């Protein structure tokens, strides 16, 4: 079976200068450093990780908003390029994005109904206005926005309602893939649950596939069929959410899971030393080794590969070759 979205060896490096202004030495910021993943039609891949791990860059690469430095993204068999030509526009109709900050993603000077209808107006210019208005009304009903909202402006809506507008707009062209970058991070708990339930219902109804990006493990588990944990531009662990979050194999995932405070329970935390390294200075060997509580000499030299086995993947020498380690 071919996947709807297929990512191979994807890299995005940015040339930067080290501190020192104009005289700083040039360096490379490896935002995304070799990603492989697939999303089959109708499935959701959750991407978790801390800030600077490359989650959002991945979203932008997948949609062809920035060109990759290496590797490729294929959507429904076709190569996604960052050349914004007719082919890209045809692809983009079927892959849409939901952003974290709905106010920033909406036009403040346009009534929301007009914004929801805009993708239809652009991609189906021949459609009569009356039919378009009908489609917009239908979309608004689907995302739980009353008809009375249609002529309101974004600043007149609450955060949750704005995010519903963004979702309705993203679904206007019945996309096959929805890229959601922290779609509920800016919302309060009770509203967050409303929006997550809404996305769940819409997915069940329209069957879109999704790349769901969040720093919140609980939210990602709620929404995903598979999850991938990123650290410094690479996937360090991947699998079914139940497996990855209940029996994490990679020491980073273990620390991340244990760091999540759970209401009503105090559990033993694995507290990692230090901050995540700057993606300009990715350490040699395993990028996690300076903070890893169980790192060995080999981890400082050799980059672990993401080894796949029975639907689970992990990039750690201690997991994939424990025997070789013991011998060392």
């Amino acid at each position, binding site marked *: 079976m071919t996947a709807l979205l297929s990512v191979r060896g994807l890299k995005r490096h940015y040339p930067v200068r080290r501190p020192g202004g104009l005289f700083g030495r040039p360096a490379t910021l490896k935002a995304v450093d070799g990603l492989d993943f697939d999303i089959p039609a109708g499935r959701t891949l959750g991407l978790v990780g801390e800030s600077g791990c490359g989650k959002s860059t991945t979203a932008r690469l997948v949609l062809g908003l920035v060109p990759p430095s290496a590797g490729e993204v294929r959507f429904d068999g076709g190569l996604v390029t960052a050349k914004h030509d007719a082919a890209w526009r045809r692809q983009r109709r079927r892959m849409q994005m939901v952003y974290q900050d709905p106010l920033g993603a909406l036009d403040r000077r346009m009534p929301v109904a007009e914004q929801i209808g805009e993708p239809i107006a652009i991609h189906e210019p021949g459609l009569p206005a009356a039919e378009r208005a009908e489609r917009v009304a239908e979309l608004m009903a689907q995302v739980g926005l009353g008809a009375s909202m249609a002529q309101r402006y974004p600043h007149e809506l609450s955060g949750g309602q704005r995010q519903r507008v963004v979702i309705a707009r993203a679904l206007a062209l019945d996309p096959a893939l929805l890229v959601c970058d922290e779609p509920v991070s800016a919302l309060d708990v009770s*509203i967050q*649950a409303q929006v997550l339930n809404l996305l769940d219902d819409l997915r069940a109804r329209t069957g879109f596939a999704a790349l769901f990006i969040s720093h919140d493990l609980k939210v990602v588990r709620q929404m995903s069929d598979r999850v991938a944990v990123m650290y410094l531009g690479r996937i360090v662990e991947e699998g079914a959410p139940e497996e990855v979050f209940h029996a994490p194999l990679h020491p980073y995932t273990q620390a991340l899971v244990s760091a999540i*405070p*759970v209401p009503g329970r105090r559990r033993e*935390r694995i507290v990692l030393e230090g*901050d995540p390294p700057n993606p300009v200075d990715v350490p040699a060997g395993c990028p996690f080794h300076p903070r890893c509580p169980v790192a060995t000499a080999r981890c400082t030299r050799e980059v672990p590969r993401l080894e796949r086995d029975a639907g689970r993947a992990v990039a750690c020498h201690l997991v994939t070759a424990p025997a070789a380690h013991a011998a060392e």
Partner: protein
Amino acid sequence: MTEHFEQLKPLVSLRGLTVDFDTGRRYVRALHGVDLDIHRGETLGVVGESGCGKSITWLAATGLLDARARMRGSVKLAGEEILNAPAKRLAKLRGGRIALIFQDPSSALNPVHRIGRQLGEALWLHRGLRGKDARREATRLLERVGISNPAQRLRDYPHELSGGMNQRVMIAMALAGEPELLVADEPTTALDATIQAQILDLLADLRRETGMAMVLISHDLGVVSDICDRVAVMYCGRVIETAPAERLFAAPAHPYSIGLMRALPELDGPRRRLDAIPGTVPPPDALPRGCTFAPRCAFADDACSGALPGLRPVQGGDHRAACLRVEAVRRGALPPEGRVACQTGVHA
């Protein structure tokens, strides 16, 4: 620390604290009479969604709201009234006996001064330390909050440090005045999960070590549950439930508290559909009559929109909730037209 006398007398005591904001045409009430006590050495968690008044309570108490705000009621620090105290008196208290840290450390620090100078200022103002003594104390404080190479870091600017490091610097500055009360407003919200864990551990350690009281304001029930002794849940400018932390998370009594917990996705156990709280928080200038949560509440009946419930004891002990239907909620009995099936499992 656990002497009888101190147990009886709260360190900070808020009574009937109200805040009105002058909108130009009229006053809009943001805080509707908050009563809270904090004892020495205690950590009080304050939770609620944005706009519920959890931050405003403490900004009002410490005199940090601007001139458009009108405060009434009483805020006593160890018996002394400090609400609407002269600006000079409040400036002396803040950073001294009461320290505050905020969500975004990078904007709370001055970007054009070195860390050492900013710490030194706090030490001079509140402890009268200067020169070598101040430098020695600043180094000690940075070391205490877990910053390696403290002597070198004193020469750094805030932009040279990470978000987690800057929050440590903020905590060090808060400690500089040897406060009796630390008010931490969303101290880990801007930080990554692994850094949040470090900061929560640090705060818990410092509290144990210094015996200071702490108010932890957060929207994250997990964070509050992690290090607090007692929790107050706020909604629309009122405290609607308060209880010892363990008790609150094991047996929440107010439908809003229950709703907040049921709305959170979980990391363990079977995946279930989230129980979202319907509707949205009403704006402060258009609050519904009676219980402000009633329009969103599955348990509400006619009486709820008629009368405003006060905080009343729930099953004895230190647990109080402002809900007319506490008994019905506890039994899980919905009124006939109840919309959301709230499971009673949370009361187990």
